[in-house]
Structures are given as structure tokens and as C-alpha cells.
């Protein structure tokens, strides 16, 4: 209670002047008549202002207290839900894991519906991470390029319109991207795969005898296109917050535009970009439907990107759910628990980075 943290005011990512007015609790300077929840260290001046018995006595069950408890309960809901997710997933996963005849973490195949259930997460987790990482490798340079284009190269009016369009694209449901990837994009990607295989089959990534098409490459490309708007709009926001003074100082010293970007925009935006990439990674790891529609759904650990196959935890849940028995469902829930853990770690890391940056920028402002 006592330690009002120095960054209780960090609402937006930018430390604008507006937010600084909330360093103290909103309205702390004016104690209301019924303000019953006065923290102990503030009690003396509250009493002094009120002039002894002039204030109504604070009631234990007044409207103020009721409202406060209600909002507290709502706020706590978030923590409750996160804990509940973990508890319920574990409770449903444990019976299936106990019935498993193989090691859950190292076995590659997924056959939980047989008389002797055998399933393991290895191939699925591998496919999830592989497709997400490739998607980010493809998307991040392009996304940063667009973000820089929109924040520092394009005409302001064009940049605003395009920024708006990119925000809209971030709202397009993933099932639409999946449908597009499956019906339209798989054609060109298959051609590309055949071409890569013809000339670059000596690289293990592009080996294999086919068939090509519904493979990690297609899934990763569709994922890349999906995370592109998110990473772009987050990093664009970060780049636009670069202090003008820094940019102008660089230009005044005779820097070219690129040198200005390299010396003032990129260092300032780096933590924000890292966080944006991590959030994009979280998105890519958890993406379900687009991958269920574009991957070949096999269970193998292979770095071959173009041969039909590939799978991910989330896609496997969507594909396998309808024909699951009790153990099968438990097995899918266990795999969901693994996915939950991975994304939780990724997201928490991203948020810690972002919060640190916030302290940094607000301290500097």
C-alpha cells in the first residue's frame, strides 16, 4: 500500500505529458467525504483537512465500500482466470498422461485414441516452433521496413492512410488467411517449392522427392503474412515516438537519412521492436486455424521445408479434436498445456522488456 511505485502512471507506451498527472492516485489530493479506504499513512492529513467531526463517519458497508469491492473482484478475475486455465488444463491432462504408454516429451507420434494410447509432443512442438520462427524470420525484416517507410519515408497523408489500412488487416480473422493460403497461395508456393527443389535440393531444407505444397513453407509464409500487420503497427508506433530532437541532432551533424535512422531511431526503438517481435512470436505460436488449413499434418521431425507435411500443436488440436475419445481429448488438452506454457513464457518476456523500456523512456522524459 505504502509504496506508490514511481511508474504507476505508465499508461501508454509513450510518456506523454497527460499521464504524468496521475503519479499520485487519481484524486488523492482531494479526499472525498465518504472516502473510506484511506491508507494509513495518509490518514493524518485527511483528518486535519476534515476538521474533526465534520466528516461523516466512514461506514463498513457503504456504497463506496461495495463499489470498491466489486471492482477489486473484477480486477482479480484476470488472475483467477489465468490460474484456473492452468488448474483445469492440468486436471484434465493428468489422466491422459497417466494412460500414455510412451514418454510424452520425446515420443513423436500422436495416437491417443488407440487401446494403448501412445502420444508425444516432440514432433508437434518442433513443428510449432519451426513454423513460427521461419514466419518471423520472413516477416520481421519486411515489417520493420514498412514501419520505417511509414514513419520516416512516406508522405504524412499517405502514411496515415496506409497505417490505417494495416491496422485493418491486423483485424482480418485468421480463418480468412487460412482459406486464402489453401485455395490461392498454395499454387505459387508449390511452384516455388518445385523450383527450389530442382536447383537447391543439395540444401537439406529444400530436399525431398515431393509431393510439395502443403508444407512448412506454405504455413510459415501464411503465418508471416498474418503477423506482418501486427509487428508493423507496433514498431511503427515505437519509431514515431523517437524524440524529434535526437533526429534533428543527427541530421544537423550531417548524417544521411539512413545514418539518422541508424543512430537515433533504431537504438531508441530497439526494446519496443524486440517486444513487438515477441508478441508476433506469441501470435504465431498460438495460431490455429490458418495452420490447420495449410499444413500437411504429419508427425515427423524434419527440417525439410517444402515436402508436404509439418504440424503444430494448435493445428493438431483443431484437426484431431472431432474424432477424439476421452483419453484423446485429455491428450490434446495436455498438448494445449504445453502451448500455454510456451506462449506464457514468450509473452511474459515481451512484457518485461516493454515495461523496462517504459521506465527508461519515462525517466528520460
Amino acid at each position: 500500500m505504502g509504496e506508490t511505485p514511481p511508474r504507476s502512471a505508465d499508461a501508454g507506451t509513450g510518456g506523454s505529458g497527460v499521464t504524468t498527472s496521475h503519479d499520485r492516485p487519481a484524486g488523492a489530493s482531494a479526499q472525498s467525504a465518504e472516502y473510506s479506504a484511506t491508507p494509513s499513512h495518509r490518514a493524518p492529513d485527511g483528518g486535519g483537512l476534515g476538521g474533526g467531526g465534520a466528516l461523516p463517519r466512514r461506514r463498513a458497508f457503504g456504497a463506496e465500500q461495495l463499489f470498491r469491492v466489486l471492482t477489486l473482484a473484477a480486477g482479480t478475475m484476470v488472475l483467477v482466470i489465468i490460474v484456473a486455465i492452468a488448474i483445469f488444463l492440468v486436471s484434465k491432462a493428468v489422466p491422459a498422461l497417466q494412460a500414455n504408454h510412451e514418454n510424452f516429451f520425446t515420443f513423436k507420434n500422436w495416437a491417443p485414441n488407440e487401446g494403448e494410447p501412445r502420444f508425444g509432443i516432440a514432433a508437434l512442438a518442433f513443428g510449432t516452433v519451426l513454423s513460427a520462427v521461419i514466419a518471423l524470420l520472413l516477416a520481421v525484416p519486411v515489417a520493420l521496413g514498412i514501419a520505417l517507410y511509414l514513419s520516416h519515408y512516406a508522405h504524412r497523408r499517405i502514411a496515415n492512410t496506409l497505417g490505417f489500412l494495416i491496422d485493418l488487416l491486423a483485424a482480418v480473422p485468421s480463418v480468412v488467411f487460412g482459406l486464402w493460403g489453401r485455395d490461392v497461395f498454395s499454387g505459387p508456393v508449390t511452384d516455388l517449392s518445385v523450383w527450389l527443389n530442382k536447383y537447391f535440393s543439395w540444401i537439406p531444407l529444400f530436399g525431398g522427392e515431393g509431393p510439395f505444397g502443403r508444407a512448412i513453407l506454405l504455413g510459415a509464409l501464411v503465418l508471416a503474412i498474418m503477423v506482418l500487420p501486427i509487428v508493423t503497427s507496433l514498431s511503427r508506433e515505437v519509431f514515431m515516438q523517437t524524440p524529434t530532437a535526437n533526429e534533428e541532432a543527427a541530421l544537423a551533424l550531417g548524417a544521411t537519412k539512413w545514418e539518422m535512422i541508424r543512430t537515433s531511431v533504431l537504438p531508441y526503438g530497439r526494446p519496443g521492436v524486440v517486444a513487438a517481435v515477441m508478441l508476433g512470436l506469441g501470435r504465431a505460436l498460438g495460431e490455429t486455424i490458418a495452420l490447420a488449413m495449410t499444413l500437411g499434418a504429419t508427425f515427423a521431425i524434419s527440417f525439410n521445408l517444402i515436402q508436404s507435411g509439418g504440424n503444430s500443436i494448435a493445428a493438431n488440436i483443431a484437426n484431431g479434436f472431432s474424432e477424439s475419445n476421452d483419453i484423446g481429448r485429455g491428450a490434446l488438452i495436455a498438448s494445449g498445456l504445453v502451448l500455454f506454457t510456451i506462449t506464457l513464457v514468450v509473452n511474459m518476456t515481451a512484457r518485461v522488456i516493454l515495461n523496462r523500456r517504459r521506465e527508461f523512456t519515462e525517466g528520460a522524459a
Partner: protein
Amino acid sequence: MSASTLVSPSGTGVELRGRRLSKWAPLGIAVLALVLAAVVVYGTGIGGWVLVVVLGAVFYLAALYLVARNVEGQRAANNRTWSALIHSAFVLAVLPLSSVVWTLVSKGVARLDGDFFGTSMNNIGARDANGGAYHAIIGTLEQVGIATLITVPLGVAGAIYIVEYGRGRFANTIRFFVDVMTGIPSIVAGLFILAFWVLIVSPHFSADGRPGYSGFAAALALSVLMLPTIVRSTEEMLRLVPAPLREGSYALGIPKWKTILKIVLPTALPGIVTGIMLAVARAAGETAPVLLVAGGTAAINFNPFENNQSSLSLFVYGQATEAGRYSPDRAWTAALTLVALVLVLTIAAKLLARRSQISR
């Protein structure tokens, strides 16, 4: 080339500006690079016009760098190359995204008729050309509506706690986990509701004591996804309400809870509604949770609390994975409908945000 010079007393020219490439040089280099790429590609027969463009772009970047380095120097060459790279990143991204939009519209209009919006898929076989998404639209509207009813009070109250009451470590923990929760995959939210509601709670309500899928379960899963988004956006808007408004109210002796309800919330309302609409738009497009806990059905089911329900996104997924002659058309039209719904919500939300009095 066109360097302005200053004649020094001794008579020799001193250059004030560095030498610059002429305005047309990049264009010339681009044409040359394309021609060279075409010669290489078609000469060796290793690919088609796509490869020509890709190879041409690579040649262009390399040639631009070399020419600029010789004429203008190292730093200007770097500048030009990076600028070209940044612009090409933009072109590279516009291509697939515009392809998505184009196919969506061109394929989506095929079944955009009254039949599509007026009938369900009940008794529609693989060879029937008709059939529609009426049941799916009903499902989407009911599920998203219930989810909104659950989440909005909860999310707004949670945000009020964080901004107005919460102090210290506990409030910070809540804020942190709200942020983390925004990243929970939708399929995990679906599995959670499956484990919690469908498998454990719903048997107590159903007549035969067996777990039942329902639209309400889908609404619960969507609420899990919407809650952090709404808390976050509401929190940001509440923080933007100027402190003097609150203080003026306190000075008049208004209790804090009344101040929040009558002063703070109305001031932040447009922004809060924007955040809610964005969350609703995102929830309407979710497929995975609905697939897991609502089950999907071909018939119309108005009752969200009993029996399977479908939704637009689930309908798209179902039709896309079905091997029928007419199902792709239905899938694309449903996708177009879904995108239209989501975009209308998003655009309305953004326009509302622009009109709001307090803004970032």
C-alpha cells in the same frame, strides 16, 4: 554531375556540394538490371518472369550501391541502398495482402445472394448448390453478444480498479497479467472452457447428465479472449481523464464511486466503446474456441444454452475443409461476410476514436 562551384581567388574551382547521381540514374539502372536479369534467366532457362523480377531487384540493389559508391561515396551509397530496401519491403508486403483482399472480393461475390443469408445448411448434400449461412450468422451474433454482455461490465470494473483504487504490488501484478493474458492463444482459451464448462459444469445442467456443447460455452471462451483487451483499452482511456475533473467533483463532496460513475466514465466513454468494439471484432473472427466448445451444426439453433451451434468463422472452416463442388463458394462468401462484419466494427471504432474529446 551538376556540382555548384565557387571560384577561388587563385582561379581553381572548389566544390561546395558533393557529386550527386542524376535523377534518372536509378531508373536507368533499374531498366538495365531487369534486362540483364531477363537475359540471364531466359538464357539459362532456369525460371519465368517472377525470377526475372526477383533477380532484377537484386541486380538493381547491387548496381545502385556500386554506382553510387563510385560517384557519391560510401555513405550516400549506404543511404540509397537502405532506402531502396525499405521501399521494396513495402512493395513486397503489399502484394500478398492485396491478393488476399482481391480474392476475397472476387470469389466472395459468387454466392452473395438472398439464399445465402436466408437458409441454413440443414439437409444440404454435397451436390446441392444452394444452402447458406443463416444458422452461422445467428450463432456468431448470439455468441459474441453474450460474450460482450459478460465481458464489458467485468472488464470496465477491472480497469476502474486498476486505475482508481489499485495501488502497490497487487495492482501492478494484475496489470502485468492483463498484458500477458492478451497473448493467450485462442485455442488454449477454447481448451480451458472445454475442460471447465463443457466437461465439468455442463453435465450438471443437462437432462441426461452428459457434457453438452453450446453457444454459451463458446461465448465464455470468447469472453476469456476479450477480457484483457477491454481491460487494457479502458484502463488507457480512464488514465486520460483529466485529474481536475475528478478533483472538482470531490470538492463538491461527491463520493468517489459516484464521481467515477458520473464524471470519469462518461468522459472516457467514446474511447471505452472503441476498445470494446475492437475486442468484439476480434472475437467475432475467432474459429478455434467455437470449434472446440460449440461443436458446430448444420441446422438453425436459436438457443445458445443447449445443443450445438455454429458460427461464421466455423462455417468458413467447415466449408473449406469439406470436399464438395459448391462448398468453396460458400466458404468464400461466408469469409467475405465475416470480414465485412469485422471491418465495419473496426472502422466504426476507429472513427469513434477520432471523434472522442480526449485522445492520445
